[in-house]
């Protein structure tokens, strides 16, 4: 279970998250929607362990263990994965080498047997099919010179290889055309299982036509102000975010 409890966080003294709570159980897909600046990406980055943020209150538990003091690589070893909104280019490091290092580092941290180059190659070939990726992409430097769509596909491909327990998708749909969106969504859907939970962060409802969530949460000003089923996303698409903001403000008053 991925549990976020009463999370408060700020960047350079500016509060971004203000008492966010959320629980993702294995097998569930949760979508977080919200207007720009509501704290969506902050949440994703804090879960993954980027240290640009200061958590002032609350905790994040993965299967009962508070991860806030853990290094990003330790979180990965516990089964967390963040698909980046802006995947980073790493010239000089091949995708293949990068992924094998990552997979083996995780296996090592878990006390499992590492994978040799041959079996890794075979394992990875299967996964490339899933994302319709060219094999030559494996030999290229990580994300270097990739198109926007290739970068996002590469993120999901990495998730497919690392097989996390909880996947956090940070605006994976932004900048994708319809075809690429479909490929990426198919990739994610293929990874859905009873043992795996997802937190899908998006600004647009469009993605949720393809990755159909079990729950939709609306994040405004650092807090979840409304939760519901997948129909909530359609309502947001039709009405925008303002009615929720108004409703929330009214409620507070």
């Amino acid at each position, binding site marked *: 279970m991925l549990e976020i409890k009463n999370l408060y966080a700020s960047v350079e003294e500016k509060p971004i998250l203000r008492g966010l709570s959320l629980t993702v159980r294995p097998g569930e897909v949760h979508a977080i929607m919200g207007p720009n600046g509501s704290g969506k990406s902050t949440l994703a980055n804090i879960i993954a362990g980027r240290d640009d943020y200061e958590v002032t209150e609350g905790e994040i538990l993965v299967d009962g263990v508070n991860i806030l003091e853990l290094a990003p690589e330790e979180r990965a070893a516990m089964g967390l994965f963040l698909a980046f909104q802006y995947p980073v280019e790493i010239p*000089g490091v091949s995708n293949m080498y990068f992924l094998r290092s990552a997979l083996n580092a995780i296996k090592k941290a878990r006390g499992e047997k590492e994978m040799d180059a041959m079996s890794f190659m075979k394992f990875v070939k299967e996964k490339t099919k899933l994302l319709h990726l060219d094999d030559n992409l494996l030999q290229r430097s990580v994300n270097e010179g990739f198109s926007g769509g290739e970068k996002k596909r590469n993120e999901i491909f990495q998730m497919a290889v690392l097989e996390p327990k909880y996947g956090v998708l940070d605006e994976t749909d932004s900048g994708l055309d319809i075809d690429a969106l479909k490929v990426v969504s198919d990739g994610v859907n293929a990874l859905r299982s009873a043992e795996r939970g997802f937190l899908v962060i998006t600004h647009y409802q469009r993605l949720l036509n393809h990755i159909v969530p079990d729950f939709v949460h609306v994040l405004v000003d650092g807090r979840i102000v409304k939760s519901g089923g997948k129909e909530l996303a359609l309502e947001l698409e039709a009405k925008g975010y303002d009615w929720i903001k108004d409703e929330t403000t009214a409620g507070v008053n």
Partner: protein
Amino acid sequence: MSVETIDRPVSLVSLHPYGNEGLPAWLIPMRASAHARFLELGIPTTKHEEWKYTSLREFESQSFAEPTFANLSDDDIADAVRGLEDAQRIVFVNGIYSEPLTTRLSQEEGVEIRTLQCVGGDPSNKLKNLFGTVARTDEFAFANLNSSQFRSGAYVQIHRNTKAERPIHLLFISTGGTASYPRVLVHAEQGSEATVVESYVTVGEGTSFVCGVTEVVVEANAKLEHVKLQSESERSYHIALSEARVEGDGTYLDYNVTFGGKLTRNDRQVFIGGSNAHVRMDGVYVADGEQHCDNHTRLDHAFPHCDSFEVYKGVLDGASSGVFNGKIFVYLDAQKTDAKQTNQALLLSPKATIETKPQLEIFADDVKCTHGATVGQLREDALFYLQSRGIPLKQARALLVYAFAAEVLERISHDGLRSELESRLYQKLGTDQG
């Protein structure tokens, strides 16, 4: 106040009466005048423009035993030959030819690897005509010291239109506590092709001093790949000059790799003496602790329609320091020159420093000549990205540094050598970083 350009007189590098055993007679007067020139120049101080950032004070307080031969076993050189098992090899211990370690040398037709004692003679005076004429050593105190002190050296000839199938490995081993004066002359005759690897290692403890001179001639339409690998102990003072003369349509690829040494100073010079020549001059150095690595390069474009590409990459950790000085001269006649110089340094610790100075002097008007220098740290976003995938910070750092430095090693054509250098680079990064 006048700037003092006369350097300190020599007191500390003790000059022993040099042995001329077996060396050709015509070398003797050359040695004597080099000796005189060295005494005249003295050991440079930091007041010397070319030695501004490399102080030899500590070096001067050391004393070194004169070069003596030591019997080493195959085990002693196992590390040094890894990756180059297929090479034609000649081995020198403290600058003195080691027959036992060289015995398995089997030479290819048209490729001659000999010592400067020149067993078999020099019937057409090729050695005599070239030796000492390539490197412009006059202003280099240490090159003159080498010329007056070397005991032997490697003389490599690749005959006209011959392609050396296997790399030629010149291995210079220094035993701790000694001074040695490696000397090399490589002559790639017209239309020939070869890879020559000079490697420098230390066996044993003690502070050593290695003072080398390498001369290279790449004749018309020849292609020479030249790798220098210095992985001596961190108690070694290594000061060396290498100069290549590249003739028309020639290709010279120079890769200068430094992993070891307490203080390393490389002067690497290329004189382009014909049209349509191609030159690469690349370097990579990795230093930590108190290591100091100074690379001075000089390229002379004296003829038109030539190109040169130069990439130097430094990785500096701990309290190490680096110096890069890259001179490019484009002569009045050298129209259509295409010269590009890049120098990049990665500082991994707040105490590490780099002094970098490109120096371009262009006298022709129709040329492309650029230089760029960057100094930086590892990118935080890339580190976080790798960590978020499960790669521990230490390994993530090593991976990024490796990727930065490997760009130069990737160009080395010999698979065995390239992967050996890559794994040494990785090892050095992996074990040395905190």
